[in-house]
């Protein structure tokens, strides 16, 4: 089962925070520690340097109520190494994940798996006697779908990356809601 985002009966939902931080040792620990201390579960996390080597971008997906989210962003701002925080609405963002999955595929089923992966524009990245390793990069929902369809063949191992996201480009309506330093 793909993980359910959004808890029924509350206004908790999946929020994507894009946090620009100084590219320094220990900054990820500060950010992760803050979530732990406030009792919020990080659903997915990706961190990598940006186009400017002084900064890294941490993309965090969390499930919280919006009131709690306000407190999280305010607390994050208090970290000296945090430079900027944006909250991305998934409807207004381009989101991507990468999945690697090793699937049982003997002579009888191999062609079906290959066909399925091809339909998703995924790739076969490794081939064994009874197994295939496939990769798919794309929207998280598409990864969920392929995962579902591969499951009947037998998933031996599966690994997904943290989510990365950027705002959709400006067309008519503003789609990036910057979390401004409160003033």
């Amino acid at each position, binding site marked *: 089962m793909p993980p359910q985002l959004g808890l029924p009966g509350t206004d908790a939902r999946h929020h994507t925070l894009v946090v620009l931080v100084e590219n320094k040792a220990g900054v990820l620990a500060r950010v992760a520690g803050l979530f732990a201390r406030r009792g919020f579960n990080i659903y997915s996390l990706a961190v990598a340097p940006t186009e400017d080597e002084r900064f890294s971008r941490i993309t965090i997906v969390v499930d919280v109520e919006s009131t709690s989210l306000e*407190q999280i962003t305010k607390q994050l701002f208090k970290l000296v190494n945090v430079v900027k925080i944006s909250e991305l609405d998934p409807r207004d963002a381009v989101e991507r994940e990468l999945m690697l999955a090793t699937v049982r595929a003997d002579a009888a089923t191999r062609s079906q798996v290959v066909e399925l992966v091809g339909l998703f524009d995924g790739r076969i990245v490794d081939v064994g006697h009874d197994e295939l390793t496939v990769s798919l990069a794309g929207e998280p929902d598409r990864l969920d779908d392929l995962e579902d369809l591969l499951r009947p063949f037998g998933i031996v191992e599966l690994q997904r990356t943290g989510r990365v996201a950027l705002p959709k480009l400006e067309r008519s309506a503003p789609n990036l809601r910057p979390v401004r330093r*409160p003033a």
Partner: protein
Amino acid sequence: MRLNGGQALIKSLEMEGVEVMFGLPGGAILPVYDPIIDSPIRHILVRHEQGAGHMAEGFAHATGRPGVCMVTSGPAATNIVTPLCDAYMDSVPLVCITGQVPFSAIGTDAFQECDTVGITRSVTKHNELVTRAEDIPLAVRQAFHLATTGRPGPVLLDVPKDIVDPNNPRSAMEWHWPSNDEVAASLPGYRPTTKGHPKMIRRAAELIVQARRPVIYAGGGILKARAAEALRELAELCDIHVVTTLMARGAFPDDHPLCLGMPGMHGNYTAVTSMQRSDLLIALGSRFDDRVTGKVDAFAPDAKVIHVDIDPAELGKVRRPDVPIVGDCQLVIEELVAAVRQLIEGGAAFPDRSPWKQTVSGWQERYPLTYEHSEPGEALKPQFVLERLRDNAPGDTIVAAGVGQHQMWTSQYWKFRHPYTFVNSGGLGTMGFSVPAAIGAKVGRPDRTVWAVDGDGCFQMTAQELITAASQGIPVKVAVINNAYLGMVRQWQEMFYEERYSEVYLSPDLPDYKLWAEAMGCAGMRVESPEEVDAAIAKANEIDDRPVVIDFRTASEEKVYPMVPAGKSNDDIIVDPSQRGEAS
């Protein structure tokens, strides 16, 4: 100029204007202690690293300048975690330097190694492992900048031995003192807002002018922002009562007709109830702590809230304000005063607040702070000791309290007339705070009389620092309110655990506090009856060449009233037994 890292560290502290620091040397920090011999900075050698931290806090509380402490790695660093957390909770500007094993040994479980930066991450405003000698001056400048601006707090620098050890080539560096611009550029994510939003200030002024039952809820932020004068101007201009929280005692003079004193769990009836019944709470540098609000849902139910704080995360954390204002309390209050003046000049007038004022003065008359005085032959009452200490001390005396019943009685019965005269541990509630904090305060303000009011339980946690005080000639005075119990725990067990007293009894005479004091180089006295109190205090006031300890043997069963039981509404306040039955 070529220096080694150790010299650069001490020189950086000198450049920051540090005159005194508190610490204790050890292996990893040794190279930094060598240049101290040649430095004008006064170093005070403590007996336990926790003492260094609390002394630095006491110094900061009393002077408003950042306290500085320095200890070695491993166990010294872990010993100073409590003061760091204490300073973090109470927003005390502190710069703490810890030694660390050489950079190449980090992560190898070396002797006296611990992950200081990891351990202290959640109890500091910021911390940093300095990895290169040439980074030391900037790291020190950043530390002082961060500790003293925005919401003040503790900053820790962890310094590996190799970058300060002149025998190691990694310690060689070219001295460069960074400019303000360089410091700002090195902290791209740190831009505290100090000036209030003009629109919000106007909104707040409008609410203030309309309110019929307004109360100013002044917190420790008033003192941190040096806003006591501005607060007084606002209160007098608008004729509004002021409650001063535990962290704000002295921020508004207790003898001012508008002062209602301390609110909260052990606040006085009028302070607690006026907030409950108010229609406008003007929260200035206060944070709606659970000890003030009681049950949050039932707190000041009819009040609109103006909340001013330098820390945006405090706004809406506990209670959603109607008018949130991020900014420095002094600047914002001055802007508020101007905005209210403008409204008045434009024809606005305050509504008739005389019914409210009558209600408030009615509460004050009916429910003053009170206790049952002891009959001849009965045990000494702690409240009586506090009253006598207060009445026999100069008006600008600095009082440091530990944590527990004696702390609450001190806050209740002392009359604070000046800011920066009450030093105590509010947020963390650190037993053992008062003796070292009083020493730090006395070092910072040698011109003032400094009393530490301590409990017997607290005293046993940090009394060894009186050796520091005696050896360094720091004449603090300590009043041990000795009720032979962990008194506040005893009170809770009596009231909420059916008088089942579990692990709470200490002893009135083990240790012998008088002998202990004398062994530590202090004058020691013992007082057992009310008649002896004044003479002992007079004698203590005369001694100015060494610390004094008075062991006041007080009644064990005395309880702190009023009290709002934890988790209960402030409406359920329990007053002194003599006042019950007439509660409204």
